[in-house]
């Protein structure tokens, strides 16, 4: 199934470090991360609490900048870009899925999915088509007019996935997407991600849960801000057979 993983590098981190300075205390959240992610890969990032998973993800998602090191996204170095340019890249290249769904409470399901597309200045007709397509994909088209508060957690997360998908991003970044869900809903979301992976999406997912980590093709283990282990998961092994 690795046809999509055509060996083309999508994300390349070289010696990325992140140091937080609070009240004279330096926290080394990341220390010299090297990471290559190819197009079409499904990577899980695991590790104990506080090891720097979210920090890594926020750097990958251009929500934050590394203190040091190189980040090349789609063969383009992204440090030193203006805030506006970073926002533009987030909008086009990256889809976010958050642990706490982060749907905007005042907007309907439809409007939530539509939101990143409006920032892109996409014509209304095309937006409509994309939103509907994304909602179909996650099986939430019938709830398009609902407000997030009227949905269950699992449904909210599916909408969040739709929102991440609608813009055809180069990579989906998910930070503990099942963290706020019970196991049944969690499974459903994981299945959804897996299906997306099968249709060619690149996914980087942070998770504690070994059960879910197994869904991914490749697993990166962090400890204290460093990559301590990289492995192909059993599943990956199974699949590549």
């Amino acid at each position, binding site marked *: 199934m690795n046809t999509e993983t055509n060996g083309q590098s999508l994300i390349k981190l070289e010696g990325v470090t992140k140091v937080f300075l609070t009240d004279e205390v330096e926290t080394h959240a990341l220390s010299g991360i090297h990471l290559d992610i190819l197009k079409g890969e499904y990577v899980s990032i695991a590790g104990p609490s506080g090891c720097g998973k*979210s920090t890594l*993800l*926020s750097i990958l*998602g251009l*929500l*934050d900048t590394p203190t040091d090191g190189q980040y090349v996204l789609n063969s383009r170095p992204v440090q030193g870009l203006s*805030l*506006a340019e970073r*926002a*533009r*890249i*987030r*909008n*086009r290249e990256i889809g*976010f899925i*958050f*642990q*706490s769904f*982060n749907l*905007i*409470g*005042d907007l309907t399901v439809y409007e939530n999915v539509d*939101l*990143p597309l409006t*920032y*892109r200045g996409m014509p209304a007709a095309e937006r409509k088509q994309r939103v509907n397509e994304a909602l179909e994909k996650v099986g939430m088209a019938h709830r398009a007019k609902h407000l997030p*508060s009227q949905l269950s957690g699992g449904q909210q997360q599916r909408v969040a996935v739709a*929102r991440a998908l609608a813009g055809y991003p180069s990579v989906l970044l998910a*930070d*503990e997407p099942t*963290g706020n869900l019970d196991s049944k809903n969690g499974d459903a979301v994981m299945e959804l991600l897996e299906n997306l992976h099968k249709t060619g999406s690149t996914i980087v997912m942070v998770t504690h849960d070994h059960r879910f980590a197994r869904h991914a093709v490749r697993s990166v283990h962090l400890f204290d801000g460093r990559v301590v282990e990289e492995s192909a998961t059993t599943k990956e092994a199974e699949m590549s057979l």
Partner: protein
Amino acid sequence: MSNLRLAFRTLSKSPGFAIVAMLTLGLGIALSTSAFSLANIFLLRTVPYPNSDRIVRLFRTTPQTRNAPMAPANALDVRTASTSYASLAFFYQDAASLAEPGQPAQQVFGLTASPAIFSVLGVQPFLGRSFTPKEEQPGKSKVIILAHRTWMRRFGGDPSVVNQQLRLDGDTYTIVGVLPASFDAPLVWGKVEFVRPLTIEKHFLTLRNNAWFNTVARLKEGVGPGQAQGELNTIASRLAKDFPQDIGADGLRITDLASASMDDTTRIILWLMVALSGMVLLIACANLASLQLARAFGRSREYALRSALGAGRGNLMAPLLVESLVLALGGGALGILLAAWSNELIGRNVNIGSEPGFAIPIDGHVLVFALLVALISGLAFGLAPAWLASRTPASESLKEGSRGSTAGPSSQRLKAALIIGEIAAALVLVGVATSFGVAVKKFLHRDVGWNTEGLFTGNIALPWNRYTDDARCRDFHRTLLDRLSALPGVDHAALADSLPVYAYNIRRNLVAAGQAPVPRGQEPLAQTAAVSPDYFATLQIPLEQGRFFAASLKPEGPAEVVVNAALARRMWPGENPIGKRLRFVDNNQWLEVVGVVGEARMAVNLSEPDTHLQAYRPLVQEPKHYLAIVLRTSLSPESLAPAVRQIVAALDADMPVAQPASLRTWIEVNLANLNLVAANLATFAFMGLLISALGLYGVISQLTMQRTRDIGVRMALGAQYGDIIGLILHEGATLLAIGLVVGVPAYFAANFVLHRAMPEMALPGWWLLGVNLVALSAVAFTACWLPARRAARTDPVVALRAE
């Protein structure tokens, strides 16, 4: 009590909030209290006499006016025929020259009144005695009672003044009493320095066509104004039947002394000020309600816990309410201090009877008002937040990390409604202040039809006892005019019985020769003045047709009149008025129109005159005792004062020149109150605008703070700086737009009231609304811009953070 302790403890934990709240409230309460103390002194406590609600004025009404004095014989008939009054007195305000040995003559202002005046008012002299009824008879009335301040100022408060003599208008009067300070009521009488008896001369008993008797009376116990009015109607119709020629369509009317003593313009403006200052306070309250709401919801978990522990709604609301009341009372105390200070400031600049300075006390009424206002504001801004906070369901707030519990939709709606109200109120405040300001400016510089610059004026009074006949008056006028004209630097000199500053004092009905008769009383009304020949040239009232009065005009020569264009058009439309004849209904003599002049508009009167028709009679043919001197000069007008004084003193050593000044100064003194009102309104507008801008800022800040996460998410999804700014500004703009839509009708309503109050003032039109809307929007946008900018700088990483 424990709630009170709790309130102090909570407030001391957020001193910033407590200080801001008390300052805002204090300012709001100060403005309201100060405005109310003006209304209190000018409208509610105008009449400082015992049982003042029983003191009434009786007026003659005509088709054109409702406040005319009565002719002596009619007034005396009313006194005899009526049974509704415990006592009834006639009076007129009067100037006299007071000359004391070794001192220059000085014009003093007093009251000439029936002896009954003191029982009408319920004030008796505290030294000496009051007048006896006998002293109303001719030859018995050379007695005088001093006002308290005259006694203090001129006689050093010496109790032995009673029975001393005093020279007034060159006559010797005996001081029979001294009035207590409680007699003073400058808003009713002006600043009175003495009272002397009004003599009922023999010929008064039949004098029905010349009206100058003002009437004041005290209603009998148990008689209401309605009953008294009924009796007056009967008397009026009997008079009309008995003397149809003199009475015509005139009626009689009763009104309380307080409302008779205040003109509508002042009344409306004062209440408008109270209302507008109240609006500032409302804006302040709305802001505090918003702040309290935020604080209440910040503590919603505490509330849920209390309610889980069994607290009832009352128990939940009490602490917040007590806290609000504590703030309100603190604000109230501050407000009273500020109001006392601002009253002092206003009092120093206010003009009563053209004299600056008037005490505006903070009395019991005002204190009660301030206290009530403080309590009501406390409830106003405390109740709704407490209610909403107490509604948070226990289960809801105990949920760990449940989002949205910090800002329920009802509190969100309430905040939006509050800010919309604030914006609407701010528009009204700014609208009234700017309309008023622009109108005052225009009014000050409007074309009055004559030239108010470069004029000297002063007033003289020829005492009746020495200028007993017309010939003496004429001689005095002629000599005086000759000498004044000869003064170096004087281009024109004139005398007139009144000037077009506030009003031409005498209004008379007139008929034209050869026209169909008009029912008595319905004849056109004209403002009239008796003037010397050079009057028009002096004031630069333009001649439109014919000629002015000739200097050579003889008293017994052809009776002439100069009319204004409005009168000519009204009486002889489309015809040449020159040579036409008219007659005042109170006089049988026909007058020939020799000239037509432009209208002289009243320089300081904000009210629409009851007639625009004006007629001038030559002073030689209608000699007067009270006169204004007017000089047109190329010099500084004030500099003429000593020379004028000398000329008058040389003619009559006992005759002072009162209020010698440049006419322009005189006008400005009279308009000072207008500027004071303008300054007050501007303060209201500024405060209102500032407080509501702060409110808008607060609400938008809170809104963005509550949404930091949403904003972070939007940024993670690729929202640009401008998208976020736009989002927040859009919220602000929506509130602003609704606020303005609500405010515009109120703006027009307020402008309508202003126009009603001051018809002579031209209110600016649509352009000012446009300017106000733009200015208000600019302020509102600035208030939203700051939180918007902060929001747009949100770190998108917050989106990743779990709660």
